[in-house]
Every structure is written in structure tokens, then in C-alpha cells.
């Protein structure tokens, strides 16, 4: 111990100072993006949200692999089936790995109804990365590998619906639809908001006045009733896929106003900045000034606004589909799935049909948290 103590204590603050300097140096030389990341990382809830969103993204990309069955595949012997329980120990208490019992229907002579009971005679092990129902990933790549699969029986983690379709698989496919609507809608509102807000803010004057009145006007119509009216006029004969695109475009076309306002505000405040003036003197065209000089200066704010507008899209689609004005089978989205639990009776008898709701809430929550974290990080030079 004495040998350790004999080391001169003066060196310790020195070292600390050095690391401090290094930290400072890396802080001062960091790019804008690195600074943002540093700031974002401090927001713990936002990091959790980011992680959840990554999971959703994986579910969206690899739905066919993660879902054991297709969205329309039926288990005809298990209608309105409860979520199956996962077992690890058999009836004698021996550890048998992860397994399920298959379910058989039995006629109950007392209640005169068909009961679904577990067949405890045979163990059905859950195989991971096993071959199961063949599929075409994104309709392109053929495959039959699933994350988990049960041989000669079915596994329904979230139970089944009225036609015996696996709710878990359908929720996974619904994730793809619902999030993709969010993505496309956000891209549409991004382009519109940037273009219209850009023109309005950069040129000012009469154009600006007209655009601003237009935005005020659109915003004064309550969103959901307007969406409902517009969705209701989509022809009934349209194919589900066409309706899907129409609803997406609809959601995107009506939500560009917030972004347009933001872009306009930023452009107006930036129009008089020195670097814009310099670019103009150097002979840059209007388009070049907007795209090369002004937009990069406030891109981070735009990204924040886009993230924050995701939830509105997802909720919009879910609500429209839920009341039957949006998407419809065989397109599967969270809203379409929730249609099955439209009244209290359905929820009372088959509460598991409510599972998609949890996904809706979690995804919206994750987007809001990430958006909040990004809003704090968007201006890394503020303290």
C-alpha cells in the first residue's frame, strides 16, 4: 500500500486537465451534426424512443420473416382463439424448452357450445429460424424462413380473429402499412411545405399574402371531419390498393401547412443575413441561394417538424380506417385491424383483438419522444 501512496500526487490534476482540454477540443472542432448527436444522446427518453422506432422499422422491413403466417392465412380450427400460452415445463415439471400445446375443439354438452382446449398429450416445440409458410418478401424475393415456427400446429401469440387469422402476424403486416403511410404522407407534406413555404418566404409581397391566407384557411377546417369528407368521396369501386394510395396522398396533401409556416418564418429571418447577401452579390440564382445556402441552415428544424408530424399521419390513417372510411381488407393496417373491436361487446368477448391499439400508442409515443429530443438538439449552439 505504501508503495502505491508514494507516487507523486501532482500528476493527477495534470492528467485531468489534459482530458478536459481534449474534451473541449473535440467539442470545438465537432461538426454541427456531431454536436446535435451529443445533445440528443443526453435525452434518455428520446434514445429509448429511437430504439423502439428502430424495432418498428425492422418489423416494417422484414414483416414476412417476423410473422409466422401470412396476413390472410387461416387456422380454420381456431376461430376467435385466445392468445396461446407459451410453456417451458411439461405436466411432470420437466424443462422442455419453449413449446406450445396445440388446440382442439371440444363440444361441451353442458353449455352446448364448442370449447377450445389445449391438447396436453403432445408437446409442440417452438423452432427459431425455421422453415414455414412460403412467402414473397415485398412481393419480390421468395423465401420460407421465419423467426419462429411450430411444426404441425399453429402458434398464435396474440390469438386469432373471427376467421382464424393470426392477430400477431396481422399486426406485423399492419405495422408495414401504417408506417409506410406515415412515410409517404410525410414526404408529400415535406415537398409541398418546402416548395410553398419557400416561395412564400423568399419572394414575400403579394404571393406571401395569398399563401398565408390559404394556409390560415386550410387550418381553420377541422382536420378529421375534412379527412372524413374527402375519404368518403373516394369511389367505392376502387381497389383496396388504390384506396391505400389515395388515403396516403390525402393525409400528405392536408398537412403541409405547419411545415410551410416554419420554412417561411425561417426564410424571412434569414433573407437579410450577410451570407445570403454575399451569395446574391456573387451572382447566385434564387434557386441556388435557397437550396445551397438557406435550406442547409435550417434543415435540422425541418427534420424535427417532420418527425413530429408522423404521429398525426398514423393517427389519421388509424382513425379513418377504424370508422370504415379509410383502408380496407385485404390491405391490413392497424386501423383496419381495430375495426374488429369496434364495439364494447367485441372487446368484452375478444379483448386480444385490441392488441393493435398498443402498437399505435407505442409508435406515436416513440415518435413524439424522438421529436422532442430532436427539437432540443436541433440548435446545438444554444445552451
Amino acid at each position, binding site marked *: 500500500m505504501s508503495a502505491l501512496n508514494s507516487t507523486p500526487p501532482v500528476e493527477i490534476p495534470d492528467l485531468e486537465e489534459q482530458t478536459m482540454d481534449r474534451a473541449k477540443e473535440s467539442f470545438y472542432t465537432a461538426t454541427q451534426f456531431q454536436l446535435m448527436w451529443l445533445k440528443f444522446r443526453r435525452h434518455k427518453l428520446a434514445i429509448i424512443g429511437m430504439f423502439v422506432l428502430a424495432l418498428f422499422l425492422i418489423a416494417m422491413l422484414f414483416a414476412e420473416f417476423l410473422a409466422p403466417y401470412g396476413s390472410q392465412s387461416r387456422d380454420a380450427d381456431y376461430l376467435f382463439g385466445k392468445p396461446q400460452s407459451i410453456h417451458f415445463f411439461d405436466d411432470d415439471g420437466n424443462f422442455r424448452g419453449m413449446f406450445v400445446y396445440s388446440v382442439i375443439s371440444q363440444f361441451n354438452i353442458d353449455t352446448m357450445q364448442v370449447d377450445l382446449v389445449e391438447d396436453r398429450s403432445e408437446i409442440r416445440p417452438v423452432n427459431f429460424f425455421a422453415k414455414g409458410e412460403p412467402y414473397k418478401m415485398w412481393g419480390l424475393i421468395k423465401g420460407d424462413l421465419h423467426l419462429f415456427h411450430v411444426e404441425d400446429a399453429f402458434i398464435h401469440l396474440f390469438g386469432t380473429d373471427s376467421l382464424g387469422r393470426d392477430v400477431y402476424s396481422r399486426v406485423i403486416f399492419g405495422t408495414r402499412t401504417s408506417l409506410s403511410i406515415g412515410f409517404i404522407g410525410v414526404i408529400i407534406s415535406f415537398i409541398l411545405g418546402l416548395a410553398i413555404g419557400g416561395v412564400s418566404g423568399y419572394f414575400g409581397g403579394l404571393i406571401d399574402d395569398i399563401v398565408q391566407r390559404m394556409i390560415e384557411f386550410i387550418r*381553420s*377546417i377541422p382536420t378529421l371531419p375534412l379527412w372524413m369528407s374527402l375519404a368518403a368521396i373516394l369511389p367505392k369501386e376502387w381497389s383496396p390498393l388504390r384506396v391505400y394510395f389515395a388515403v396516403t396522398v390525402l393525409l400528405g396533401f392536408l398537412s403541409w401547412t405547419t411545415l410551410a409556416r416554419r420554412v417561411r418564418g425561417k426564410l424571412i429571418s434569414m433573407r437579410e443575413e450577410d451570407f445570403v447577401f454575399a451569395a446574391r452579390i456573387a451572382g447566385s440564382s434564387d434557386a441556388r441561394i435557397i437550396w445551397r445556402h438557406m435550406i442547409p441552415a435550417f434543415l435540422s428544424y425541418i427534420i424535427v417538424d417532420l418527425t413530429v408530424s408522423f*404521429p398525426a399521419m398514423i393517427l389519421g390513417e388509424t382513425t379513418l380506417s*377504424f370508422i370504415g372510411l379509410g383502408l380496407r381488407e385485404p390491405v391490413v393496417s392497424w386501423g383496419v385491424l381495430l375495426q374488429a373491436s369496434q364495439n*364494447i361487446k367485441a372487446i368484452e368477448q375478444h*379483448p386480444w383483438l385490441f392488441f393493435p*391499439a398498443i402498437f399505435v*400508442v407505442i409508435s406515436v*409515443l416513440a415518435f413524439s419522444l424522438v421529436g422532442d429530443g430532436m427539437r432540443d438538439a436541433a440548435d446545438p449552439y444554444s445552451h
Partner: protein
Amino acid sequence: MAKYALRRFITMVVMLVALSLIVFVILELPPGDFAERYVHDLRQSGAQVTYGQVEYYRHMLGLDRPWPERYLNWATNIVTRFDFGWSLTYRLPVTKVIGDRIWFTIILSVVTIGASYLIAIPLGIYSAIKQYSTGDYLLTILGYLGMATPAFLFALLLLYVSTMYFGTSVGGLYSLEFQNAPWSWNKFIDLMRHIWPAVIVLGTSGAASTLRTMRATMLDEKNQLYVTVARAKGVPENKLIQKYPVRAALNPIVSTIGWELATIVSGSPITATVLSLPDIGPIFLKSLTNQDIYLSGTILLIYSCLTIVGTFVSDILLAMLDPRIRYGGIE
């Protein structure tokens, strides 16, 4: 002030006129009309309908005239006789179909907005003053959850909980004896007793965002120098909070009453349908699917009116609160 109010009022009227036109155009867009749908339904029920009958109905209902003419007719009748047209599904004047239900929608919206402010503003202040306390974290989590849950999910959840655990249904709004009674004070009291599930469902997301806004602006304001000065002068803490930062922080809340109302109104058709409330929401949905354009148009117009009037009110309130606004702002 009067000049400012008048200017805002004129803007509001212009908006309403433009709105009525847009509403009419939107509802005119779909191919096919009520006559076709009606005849289709007749055929489905087994009746023999000739092609001439479609034309006959169309002519009788005035659907064969060009849309600008029909719009002008509709608009003039509204202004001169308060006649919003004829509901083709109910075979009654639109005003009759909507009738008392409109009052319910208005009462519900106003009660909801009042309740959500009454709850959210004090909680927001508390959250900001006790920043990073357990209560603050709890409120933050609740706030996020409230914003993330769509109204219809919340309504379903409430229905589920109340039927499963309390054995009563929260759907419907009046006790039996008041179901068909005309409006009276007692009926109003009875309504207030049954209105809370709808208020909770409609108000939560708005209350959640009000709470977040209130907290954020309070946090900005509470460290301002004028607050420190007041504290240094020895103003008691409670009075200080009320008089200084809260007043300033209320500003953005007041200015968004219009949007707040828009959010509530926007959610109401769905919530009303799920909770089976006797307001205009369920009729709206039905009229949309039936292409009953005068009815759905009128309701869409009512919804928009509520938000436009809300914006007007919040503009005036804001001008009263903040002199910079009524004098045209700082250049």
C-alpha cells in the same frame, strides 16, 4: 380595439363564405348522386325501377341543375331563411335532423375546453415550479400518453373498463325520463351528470398538450429578471407566481384556444360514434356514407364555424391581453 375587432370579424365572415363554397365543392366531387344511390337501394330491396325513374328523382330533387346554381340556391336559403336544405336520407329539413343535437355538440365542446383548461393549467404550473420532482415526471408521462392515444381508442378503453369493472355502461347521455324531453334546466343537470366520459375522452389530448405548453412557457418565464425583482421586493411566493410568470405564460395558451377548439371538434364525430352520443357526430358519419350532401355539408360547415369562431374569440382575447397585437406589433 374596436377597429381591430371589426377587421377580424370581417376576415371571419369572408372565411365563412369561402368555406361554404369549398365544402360544397368537396361534397359535389364524387361521381354518382343521391338519386342513383336511392334507386340502387330500391333495386336491392327488390323493387322494379326504370331508368326514367332515376331521371325523375333527379329532377324532383333538383340534382340535374349545374352545381354553381345549386350552391347559390343553398347559400341564399341559408342566409335568408336559415334553411340548410333537405336531408335526403331522413326526408326532413337538415335543420330538423340536426335540431337539438347541435346544442349538445356545442355544450360538449365548451365544457370540454373549460374542463381541460381548469385541469391542465394548474398542473402545468405545478409541473414547472416543481421541475424534476416525482410529480413532474408523473405528469410528463401522463401528458405524453394522453397525446399519443387516439380519442377513439380512449373511448373504447373507457367503455371496456366501465363495463368490466363497474358494471355500468358509459354510453348514452340522459337518464330515461329525459331521453325525449325538451330542453329544460333539469335536463341540463342530468346531462352534466352523464357528460363526463365524453369530456374525458375529448379533452385528454388537448389537456395533455396544454399541460406541456404551460410547463414549457412557465419554465422560460420563471427565471426571468422581472420575477427575481418581484421576489427581491418581498412579494409572497404564491402571489408572485400568480401575478407575474403565470400571466405571461398564459399568452400562448389563450392564443391557441381556436386550435384547441378545432382539436376537440375534430375528435368529436369519432368519439360521439363510439360512445353513441346524441350529437351531430354519428349523423355526420352516416350522411357521408350515404352521400346525403346537404346534411354532411351543413355539419362540416358547423364544425368549421366552431373553429373559425374559436379563432376569432382567441384573437380578440389575445388583443385584450397584449397591446402589441392590437397596435400592429413591433416592426
